[in-house]
């Protein structure tokens, strides 16, 4: 899903178990808290977050115009996920720069 910091969905392709509104709202909250916290800690702008939980992973990548949010199952290796996500993020950024 591509979502703005305020939770507006730009584009999405979600599995059947996920609801668009919920993913957008939760992601937006996560992004806002993370970005603000990193600034408060003096660590600059948030670029990427990779969360690992007992049953899956979530990755958030800053696209400047919004964030790419990816949710995966646990069976995918983190390294593999990050390569795919980075590649997708690059393509989206290129697409945006052409518009």
């Amino acid at each position, binding site marked *: 899903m591509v979502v703005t910091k305020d939770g507006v969905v730009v584009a999405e392709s979600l599995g059947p178990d996920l609801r668009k509104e919920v993913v957008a709202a*939760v992601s937006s909250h996560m992004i806002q*808290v993370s970005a603000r916290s990193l600034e408060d800690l003096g*660590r600059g702008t*948030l*670029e990427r*977050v990779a*969360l690992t*939980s*007992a049953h899956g*992973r979530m990755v958030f990548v800053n696209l400047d115009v919004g964030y790419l949010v990816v949710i995966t199952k646990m069976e995918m290796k983190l390294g593999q996920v990050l390569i795919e996500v980075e590649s997708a993020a690059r393509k989206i950024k290129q697409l945006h720069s052409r518009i």
Partner: protein
Amino acid sequence: MGLWSNFKANRELAEARRDVARARSPYSIAQFIDKCIELGRLDQAFEDAERGIQEFPESESLQEAYKRMIRAKCADDLKAYRDEIRTSPGPKAYYRLACLYKEMRDLDQAVELARKGMEDYPNYEGNYIVLADLRYERFQRDLRASDGLEATQLFEKAVDLNGENYRLLFQLAEIYRAIGARDHAIAKVKMILNFAPDDRNALNLLSQLKSAKAPKSNDLKEILQDFERRAAAGNFRKQGQLSARYVANPGQLERKLPSLDRMPGFQRVVVLGPHGELLAAHPGGAQSNRNEADTLKKMFAAAIDCSLRMDISTFEKGLFESEVGFTYLVVADSLQIAVLSNNKVKKEKLRQDVHRFVEHELYI
């Protein structure tokens, strides 16, 4: 295996065992298990993995080592069950393979197979039980009403298909009792007594249930939501070994933190307790890191909440990258550990060093 190679393997194992004895931690036990796997001593690996998990149930290293061990041990079974599905698929073939994946802790595969078995053979109860067990495991860890409801619905479906499965009925009655659904539990025990009227365990459980307080409502959803509320208030979570040790003695924790100075790029570490209370920090100690701790507490809360709401279960770790460097959050046995580093360090190295610190230094 020849005599010489057997002798060599024994010597290597003895050496590895001495390493564990020198500093017993989940990390060192996991390394010993890996050594056993490498040397083909799977029974030894199994024995130590079982013992290690009992001793350190929250350890990530041991869970991973256990997975590797069980995969090595069950490789032949896995092949045989996969072949069975290919050549003569049936409800039990799916059930057996799903159970094996569950034992190997490959839960995505287990769910997928049990679901497929359930869809193709809806009149066989086994695959419902596998799915229910997995959901119930998650309920026990996360204490979320939605997981509990789904687990009990799947168990009930299995009961509908086979109302004389003693183990299943007893398990379901125990689950209902644990969440406070007394009348639901009584109904299941009565089902057992219909076909086993003298069963002592069932009679004992029935008498305990009858003397228990009746819930305010009999609606399972409401009972589970009430359970979730009480869980959120911290009424059910047991404190693990690490958090019990360091919450009681944060000074001991603070003395361990300077070992992270050796980590390349290390800048700061802040450790919070199970309720987000500041336990220790380095450099500067807890008092001078109070503001950082307040901010990190918010980050942990957001990550924990995000994981649960996205249905990916309990948050374990998160790497936050920014212009200045990395902020790595790890939850270990309810302790919330935040390690800040510059961006000169390789991410994988950061993960490994923090993992070793949590799974070894903190335990010894």
